[in-house]
């Protein structure tokens, strides 16, 4: 029985690639490989890639749904779809894009990059990370299983009652929505916990809180926001399910319930959520743009603080989704004011990016084009949001295509463009190969022009009075030609996305081999090989500034980060735990090895929700038993993780 060491002073060593220590580290961190490895891996890089791939598949599915809807709206009185099919399509388009693509893709980036950016060997809770992915995948499948049965959710992504109540929607459609969202909420919540603890405890020594990259700030703020908002709305979904199945009256008007209660509960989560799906993306730009401007980001502190302020204010603006519900004018004016003030943190970020471009020497790579294009789309989306913050104007704009335009500019503009740019930027690090630059530039222009031609006329459609979610419209309202332009533009944008996917698939095999740091980026991930070894860092680096790889050339101060020399930590899977603010070395963290319990627990949880959906209580019971056993297995104290004091 190996004697359990509880205290050891870590060796300081020099990292050489083929040194004996890297073989030992390889043994410690390599999973079994093959199918068993695939199911049981807890490596943050594997989970990150899976998040990215699954999220992009949902993006494509959501895109197909959008394409079918646009075909239906191309001309007045079109008969391609029935009203019910259209309702299910626009609901699944919304749910897929906002819940199954937007945050998961950012989780993909963050899961892959956080340990590399922070100088750690893995996330704080590797098994929780795997569990979070599996639950997300099963929630996606849970929502999509209803489609072939023709019983997909059909009341929009914010699912207003009483149309969502049993009296007007007696099928299982809305139960699939409610339970699916609670399941997805579990994945998001545990993911948020994982990110927050990783930020507080697993930074490389010396990387104090004001030296972490902006992507970290973005994801951290999003995680704190989700930690507060997602459990609350999961309760609201559960209340809706109880109303529908067990005759409670939370939202039932005839017995004292209130439809407005649902609107408030949903949007209190809704607005923080839409900030959670854009702040990390803004973080990607804030980290990627400086590399291509050949200079550090202008105003690191203002941008970091504006990210946090945006989320804090984000909790105080939700009624701007409900200006037309007849609430008292005083209340609405308050929320109108907060919705206008929230423009300021965004302004800080925009001017910081422009200043970085203006005072830097921009290098026109594809990634940079996406980041630059993002800035203008961000501003267009921002100002159209600012217009809806004015209560009386919103009484005309709300529930029309102006809002559809605004939400597409913000979500595609602020999430999709940075994500695609981020893939161009970090593809070499993920795969060791560069993506094709010329195809990349063509992809940008096709996507940028397609997007603007497709979605800018939606503003005009909104101004000429086209309401949201109508599956057809009569002639004579002037909506026909504009809808045609929107459809063509959106198809062009779709072509752009396909070009990007082709670029990714082709570059996997035939991309130019990329070194460790093809773009001469400043942050830690560029100090590792491409793709990084399974243990990330041979020795835990020490950090002395915000831009470790640019310190020499920025000649500020004389202490230097060192990625060649640091703590060895090769006794099993270990990484360095540091204090929260100043990141001083604090403890050696023993990391759990690959395990099946996350997958098992996720499967049992999914079975629990399927049992609840189908009212088969024995399945529910069985799932509960398996959940308990899997949890015990998961939390069983392991000697190898020195969780047992002998």
């Amino acid at each position, binding site marked *: 029985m190996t004697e359990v060491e509880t205290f050891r002073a870590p060796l300081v060593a020099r990292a050489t690639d083929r040194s004996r220590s890297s073989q030992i580290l390889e043994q410690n961190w390599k999973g079994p490989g093959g199918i068993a490895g695939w199911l049981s891996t807890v490596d943050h890089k594997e989970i990150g890639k899976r998040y990215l791939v699954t999220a992009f598949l949902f993006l494509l599915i959501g895109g197909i749904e959008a394409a079918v809807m646009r075909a239906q709206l191309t001309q007045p009185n079109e008969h391609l779809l029935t009203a019910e099919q259209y309702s299910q399509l626009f609901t699944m388009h919304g749910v897929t894009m906002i819940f199954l693509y937007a945050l998961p893709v950012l989780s993909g980036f963050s899961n892959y990059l956080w340990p590399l950016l922070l100088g750690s060997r893995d996330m704080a809770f590797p098994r929780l990370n795997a569990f979070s992915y599996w639950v997300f995948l099963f929630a996606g499948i849970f929502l999509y299983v209803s489609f072939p049965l023709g019983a997909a959710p059909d009341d929009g992504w914010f699912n207003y009652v009483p149309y969502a109540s049993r009296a007007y929607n007696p099928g299982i459609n809305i139960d699939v929505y409610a339970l699916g969202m609670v399941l997805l909420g579990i994945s998001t919540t545990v993911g948020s916990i994982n990110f927050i603890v990783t930020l507080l405890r697993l930074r490389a020594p010396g990387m104090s809180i004001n030296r972490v990259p902006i992507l970290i700030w973005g994801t951290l703020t999003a995680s704190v926001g989700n930690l507060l908002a997602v459990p609350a709305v999961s309760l609201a979904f559960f209340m809706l399910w109880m109303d529908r199945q067990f005759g409670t009256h939370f939202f039932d*008007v005839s017995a004292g319930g209130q439809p407005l209660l649902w609107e408030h509960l949903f949007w209190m989560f809704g607005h923080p959520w839409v900030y959670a799906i854009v702040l990390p993306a803004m973080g990607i730009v804030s980290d990627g743009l400086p590399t291509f401007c050949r200079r550090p980001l202008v105003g690191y502190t203002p941008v970091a603080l504006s990210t946090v302020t945006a989320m804090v204010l984000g909790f105080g603006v939700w009624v701007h989704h409900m200006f037309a519900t007849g609430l008292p004018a005083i209340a609405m004016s308050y929320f109108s004011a907060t919705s206008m003030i929230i423009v300021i943190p965004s302004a800080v970020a925009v001017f910081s990016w422009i*200043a970085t471009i203006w005072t830097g020497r921009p290098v026109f790579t594809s990634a940079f084009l996406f980041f630059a294009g993002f800035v203008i789309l961000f*501003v267009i989306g921002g100002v159209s949001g600012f217009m809806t913050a004015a209560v009386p104007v919103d*009484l005309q704009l709300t529930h029309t295509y102006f809002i559809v335009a605004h939400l597409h500019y913000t979500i595609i503009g602020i999430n999709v463009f940075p994500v695609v740019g981020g893939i161009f930027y970090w593809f070499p690090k993920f795969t060791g190969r560069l993506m094709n630059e010329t195809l990349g530039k063509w992809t940008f222009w096709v996507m940028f022009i397609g997007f603007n031609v497709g979605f800018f006329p939606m503003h005009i459609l909104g101004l000429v009075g086209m309401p949201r979610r109508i*599956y057809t419209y009569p002639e004579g*309202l002037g909506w026909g030609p504009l809808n045609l332009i929107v459809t063509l533009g959106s198809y062009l944008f779709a072509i752009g996305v396909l070009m990007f996917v082709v670029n990714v698939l082709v570059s996997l095999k035939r991309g130019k081999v990329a070194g460790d740091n093809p773009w001469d980026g400043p942050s830690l991930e560029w100090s590792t090989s491409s793709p990084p070894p399974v243990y990330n860092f041979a020795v835990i680096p020490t950090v002395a500034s915000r831009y470790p790889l640019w310190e020499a*050339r920025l000649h500020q101060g004389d202490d230097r980060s060192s990625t060649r020399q640091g703590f060895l930590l090769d006794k099993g899977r270990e990484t360095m735990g540091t204090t929260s603010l100043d990141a001083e070395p604090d403890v050696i963290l023993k990391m759990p090895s690959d395990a099946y319990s996350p997958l098992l627990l996720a499967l049992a949880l999914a079975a629990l929700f399927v049992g609840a959906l189908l009212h088969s209580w024995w399945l529910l019971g069985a799932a509960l038993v398996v959940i308990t056993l899997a949890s015990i297995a998961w939390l069983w104290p392991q000697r190898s993780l020195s969780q047992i004091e002998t």
Partner: protein
Amino acid sequence: MSARCTLVPSVALLARSATTYADTPMSYLHTYGPAGDPITRLGWGLGTISIAVISVIAVLLLGGLFRHRTERASDDAQLAVGREGGGMAWIYVGVGVSTVVLIICMGWTLVTTAIVLHPPSTPALTVQVVATQWWWRLRYTSANPSRTFTTANEIHIPVGQPVRFELASVDVIHSFWVPQLSGKMDVIPGQTNVTWLEADKPGVYRGQCAVFCGAEHARMALEVIADTPVDFRAWQDDQLREDPPPGSVTVRAGQRVFQAHCAACHAIRGSDAAGIVGPDLSHLMSRRTLAAGSLPNTPGNLAGWIADPQSLKPGAQMPDHLVSGPDLTAVVEYLNTLQ
């Protein structure tokens, strides 16, 4: 190929489209009543500021892009600037200007909110609107109960006076919206929301349900017809006048068919039909549209609608196969007498 050449055409597109689209029926680029005009002015103001901001940012961005452009990161070792600083001024100036603009807009917004909240004078007329899945029931109330009557989907209001609307829903959330007269107001079951409209000049102003309310949300339109006070009074009297009893044989047969097949859901004042499941059909032929604005009101459309409503408005509550053949022609003939 720079971003600039795409921005210019889109701004032009916006300007050109503004003029051509101003007069489409549902456009609120131009409104015709005191409840809508202040909103439109504020809307144009904020819109102009937005376009200005976009243009400024676009110019700055393009400027920044082409100022020190380098072909390739050839001498990658070399960084743009040694010093960390520089560029903070951008943030201070940019955020400062933005904050000032925001505060001005906020002030203008509060003023406009106050103006449009309440009608200038207490409305003489109150219309009770009941939104139900996929049409609008209207009840004109008045101090003298016998001048209280019910109609559907077509609201008449006197020009130049504010009219109060009490909105109630009997099933799901709808939204009462006549864009050319004022902002929308959601109709939420369990509570009565109040809004007001006023038209400066006579005309037909189209409205539509704005919140998703089920299968035929797309075909739940309404029309507000502003009449001169004289015409409005005439219209009210006309609605209160009972149609003469059917004269010819076929019309009498048509009334019998109507009483047998349709009276359970529809009402015609003056006859024995008084159902409230469907719209009140008194003086049906005086209305411009059928099935909540879905199709213009012509005898041909009426016959087509009665014969097979599910093909024109699938999901509507009106069932198919209710009357056909000679019954259909008789009942259409009878309905045509309801002027």
